[in-house]
């Protein structure tokens, strides 16, 4: 699997991770090696095999539609980096 530097930049952007110019070659090297490792998957024909998402193939259970969680906004916002008036603060999004 051959990746190039701009692939790494693109993936890092999708993952919202900033990667420095000097680290990019390392990630390129490591990620390419991992993709080479997983390449052996293609030695097996899986044409008519169904993908398996849950080892026991159990489907999500349903429950009655009733309120189970109480409002704990203040409790949870105590650990937030920046809040104001019950809202999480982020840099200005709309000019």
């Amino acid at each position, binding site marked *: 699997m051959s*990746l190039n530097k701009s*692939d*790494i930049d693109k*993936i*890092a952007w*999708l*993952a*919202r*991770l*900033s*990667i420095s110019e000097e680290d990019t070659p390392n*990630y390129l090297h*490591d*990620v390419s*090696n*991992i*993709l080479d*490792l*997983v*390449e*052996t*998957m*293609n*030695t*097996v024909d*899986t044409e008519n*095999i*169904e*993908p*398996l*998402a*849950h*080892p*026991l193939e*159990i489907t*999500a*259970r349903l*429950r009655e539609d009733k309120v189970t969680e109480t409002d*704990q906004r203040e*409790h*949870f916002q*105590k*650990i*937030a*980096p*920046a809040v104001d008036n019950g809202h*999480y603060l*982020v*840099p*200005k*999004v709309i000019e």
Partner: protein
Amino acid sequence: MHKKTIKELSSALQNKEFSSEELVSFYLHRCELHNADLNCFISLMPETAIKQAKSADKKIQNGNATPLTGIPLAHKDIFCTNGTKTTCGSKMLDNFIAPYDATVVTRLNKAGMVTLGKTNMDEFAMGSTSETSFYGAVKNPWDIDRVPGGSSGGSAAAVAAKLAPVATGTDTGGSIRQPASLCGITGLKPTYGRVSRYGMIAYASSLDQGGPITQTAEDAAIMLNAMAGFDERDSTSAEKAVEDYTKNLNESLDGLTIGLPKQYFGGQLDASIESVIQAGVKELENLGAHVKEIELPNSELSIPAYYVIALAECSSNLARFDGVRFGHRCDDPKDLTDLYLRSRAEGFGKEVKRRIITGTYVLSAGYYDAYYLKAQKLRRLIRDDFRKALEDVDVIIGPTAPQVAFKLNEFIDDPISMYLSDIYTVSVNLAGLPAISVPAGFANELPVGMQIIGNYFAESRLLNIAHRFQQATDWHQRSPEGFE
């Protein structure tokens, strides 16, 4: 006191040989004495521990004790503990005070256990050496120049050095069993869904499973009795009733059929490890078991399938760390994008970033089918191999890890070699089966674990076999020098 199993500690507490407060103070002292050498704890919790011990003593006094009341334990720092720092080994969560308890923590608190502290681990459980932690590498008590395995390396090192009589761990691709093997102790990964994942910081949700790390199989059974059970807060929790895992510990092994997978022996397996496992199997034959050679034809594919699935799920799970609601936030972000990019770049370590990037790639448009879907198809083949094998045999036995504990820094810049060392453990997670690692001997003076894999929800049988093995051998009673 530290030489006792939790079974023995429990009767000593009931018989008033010592109080829980005395026991807990003793262990806290041992932790303070040895933690600098081993780095197995991220946080010690002396104040809350003493408070919990006092309340346990009251329960014992009043005759309201369970078999676990007043027994100290260490929690892997992946389990949320209300009001206490829960880091998952990451700078990202260095300032995170968990606002609630994980179900495992709630259950063990309810049973009356006392939390000594939170153990060190690979960052976000991503690693097989416990070296990727933001808080530095954990050392193996058998040789402090070596790793304890990972990712539950802090829990394993703490139990091996007897800084805690028992600890919790989590196992996504071997993270309970492999460190148990490398540290000479017992580690059980239950069936997927048996122990609740609620409040257990997610790595790869379709593989993650919590379990006990103990000195003996009997202790693991006592712990699992308290840890296992349906939890409506975990969407994949098994609705199956929990049995008493201590009930069948002494059952005879007469007529037990053990499968030895052809693919697990020879090849890359170190010869000295192979002979330890063969001797362990012989011991079980002496106890009445029969052996049969079996095939797990797709074993080799478990590493690629596992790494695609685990990395894909990790990239999705770790998207929640955004610097907005909790965890690390960069200074002076210039806009929202900058806030995400830099908070995540500063908060995550190298191995975590490597896995997020690879996971993002395999899930990205145009590659999903070739990687993630392909891996899920292989996952079915791997699971079907186990299913078929377990129609003919009761359990499957092999090594837990292909080598003994490696030197610190040996794999730090060679992730691929580290990934390949997970060969015997990851397939069990892909299949969702239960498995236990028990000490079976030594190679180059370092402990070797034997892995016993069972059918779905056959924890009771695994514990029975492990217990009978430990009644006949004394490998699990060996202690590393300096920690006797």
